[in-house]
């Protein structure tokens, strides 16, 4: 009982103490700003027709976008922003074959303003295809790449503006803020272990026993592990950072050391597993170990979520009549 009260208090207090302006600025805003910077850099490289620099900057954009995506909670603050991430990234969100559509657009001479009419044509996935399979010295390819990178930068700026406009809603309610943040972590961990690792290593329900590296998120650019690392680093920013009072600090203040240590331990294990991996390792034993570690991380978040509900303390005597 005492343990549950401690953890319950921890989660409520987390919002009160850790989800404050320093946390919001240091994680949510800082990551979005960094992603806007990466999108700007890639736009500059494309403008200069420097494909190598553009490819290098793409890796940075992947890293920084994943950080924004991992703690994306703007849709919970204002539902107008629920779909914004899908305008930037269609991984597991869209079944259409954008590669053949982009090929057709490149080969045609239609006005690009109209040709690239779909959101999916202007996503990070489309940019990867263009940068890593086409030649951006070709004026039409370059123009397409620029439209995409500017679109991504524009949506990231929209996200930043949205956070500034709606941050009060996040900061004013402890209960709401902790729920939203925990949901974001849980959702992100599920997608990480099931889609980004499980589908590749053949451990997801959909692809059980059928490992295939081609299902990796950024198979063309080899940035899949880069994305996974960025996601895990963002979890570290939320639960185990040295720069501001975070979730772990609050947990310790309330003596819930064991609970937070379990989550951090699973996170560290995941980070350690991913550390020396490259994309081609995903369908190997290393990928299996990473899948298991992230599964445990997800479970530890769900346990935290259950504790937040304080099951024992909210129902009257379980005896009969």
């Amino acid at each position: 009982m005492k343990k549950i009260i401690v953890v319950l208090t921890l989660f409520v207090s987390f919002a009160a103490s850790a989800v404050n302006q320093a946390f919001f600025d240091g994680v949510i805003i800082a990551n979005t700003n960094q992603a806007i910077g990466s999108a700007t850099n890639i736009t500059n490289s494309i403008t200069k027709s420097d494909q190598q620099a553009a490819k290098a900057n793409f890796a940075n954009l992947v890293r920084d976008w994943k950080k924004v995506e991992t703690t994306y909670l703007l849709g919970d603050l204002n539902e107008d922003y629920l779909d914004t991430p899908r305008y930037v990234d269609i991984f597991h969100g869209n079944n259409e074959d954008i590669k053949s559509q982009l090929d057709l657009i490149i080969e045609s001479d239609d006005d690009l303003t109209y040709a690239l009419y779909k959101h999916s044509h202007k996503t990070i996935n489309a940019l990867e295809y263009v940068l890593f399979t086409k030649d951006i010295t070709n004026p039409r390819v370059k123009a397409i790449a620029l439209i995409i990178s500017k679109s991504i930068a524009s949506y990231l700026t929209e996200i930043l503006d949205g956070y500034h406009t709606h941050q009060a809603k996040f900061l004013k309610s402890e209960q709401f803020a902790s729920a939203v943040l925990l949901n974001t972590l849980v959702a992100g961990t599920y997608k990480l272990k099931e889609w980004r690792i499980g589908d590749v290593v053949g451990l997801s329900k959909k692809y059980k026993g059928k490992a295939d590296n081609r299902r990796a998120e950024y198979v063309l650019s080899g940035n899949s592990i880069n994305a996974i690392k960025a996601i895990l680093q963002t979890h570290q920013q939320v639960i185990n950072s040295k720069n501001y009072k975070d979730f772990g600090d609050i947990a310790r203040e309330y003596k819930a050391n064991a609970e937070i240590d379990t989550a951090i331990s699973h996170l560290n294990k995941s980070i350690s597993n991913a550390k020396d991996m490259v994309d081609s390792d995903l369908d190997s034993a290393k990928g299996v170990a990473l899948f298991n570690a992230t599964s445990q991380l997800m479970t530890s978040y769900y346990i935290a979520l259950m504790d937040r509900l304080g099951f024992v303390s909210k129902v009257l005597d379980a005896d009969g009549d």
Partner: protein
Amino acid sequence: MEINPLEYLLNPNKRIFWIFLLSSLLIALTYLWLNPREKRINFSKKLWLHPSAILDYGYFVFMAFFKVLVIFPILFGAKEVALWVNAALLGEYGYTRLEGFSYAQIMFIFTLSLFIVSDFTRYWLHRFLHTMPMLWEFHKVHHSAKVLNPLTFYRVHPVESLLFGLRYSLSIGLVSGVFIFFFGAMIDIYDILGVNILAFMFSLIGSNLRHSHIRLGFGEKFEKFLISPYQHQIHHSKHHTDTNFGGFLAIWDWIFGTLTLSKGVGRLKLGINSDDMKNFGNFQNLVFFPFFAIYQSFKKHFF
């Protein structure tokens, strides 16, 4: 783990939390003011110091210890069930989030669902305790009370206590697991002092009078929806033990044909049949006689 029977008075999750006792007392005093003829029995020493009542007091202290030391450690919790349900749904349907509901709406639906499902399972377990011969042997412990007082609520055999604990874990865990699957951490309940607001409100309106001799009914119309204290006392009478199984809500009794309204029910003879009553006259028998009775019945049927 802390063991302190007095904690029952201070813990809002307990039936005899002091606020619930106080509200019941106020309702009882008002009732007696309006029905002065019933003062005699309710204030009588014979009632409060009846051997059956004294047995209730002692048994309550025993069960407070026994639950903490024996029952709780072997029970799996609602949290484990919720984790399992959520994991099973995740495995079957993948990550799912229902959008379009506000936090307040989700809280309202979750609070209501927990209350209704909990009350529904409580009805059925209580009914099974009466209709299944083996379970009835354990539930006789509760019905062997010759007089009623708020502590009679705790005159429950450990096996029954275990079953109600399991019922709680399964029903609350199931509802929570489903809601967590659809809404993640965006769920919580409306509560008062940490208790489901609906359970708290219904407990305020005389829950401790269910086990008392205050014959408070709610009227014909209301008693189809809410179990009144008198309806529960009727359930404790020898001739009506097969009716009024409901906890807070009477709708389950109404729907499933086990409802008896207060109107028209005369004098109550509490307890079970005389032959059985003598088997539950002391502390040891409350604990061990049900096992003996089941053994005897088993021997009679199979040997």
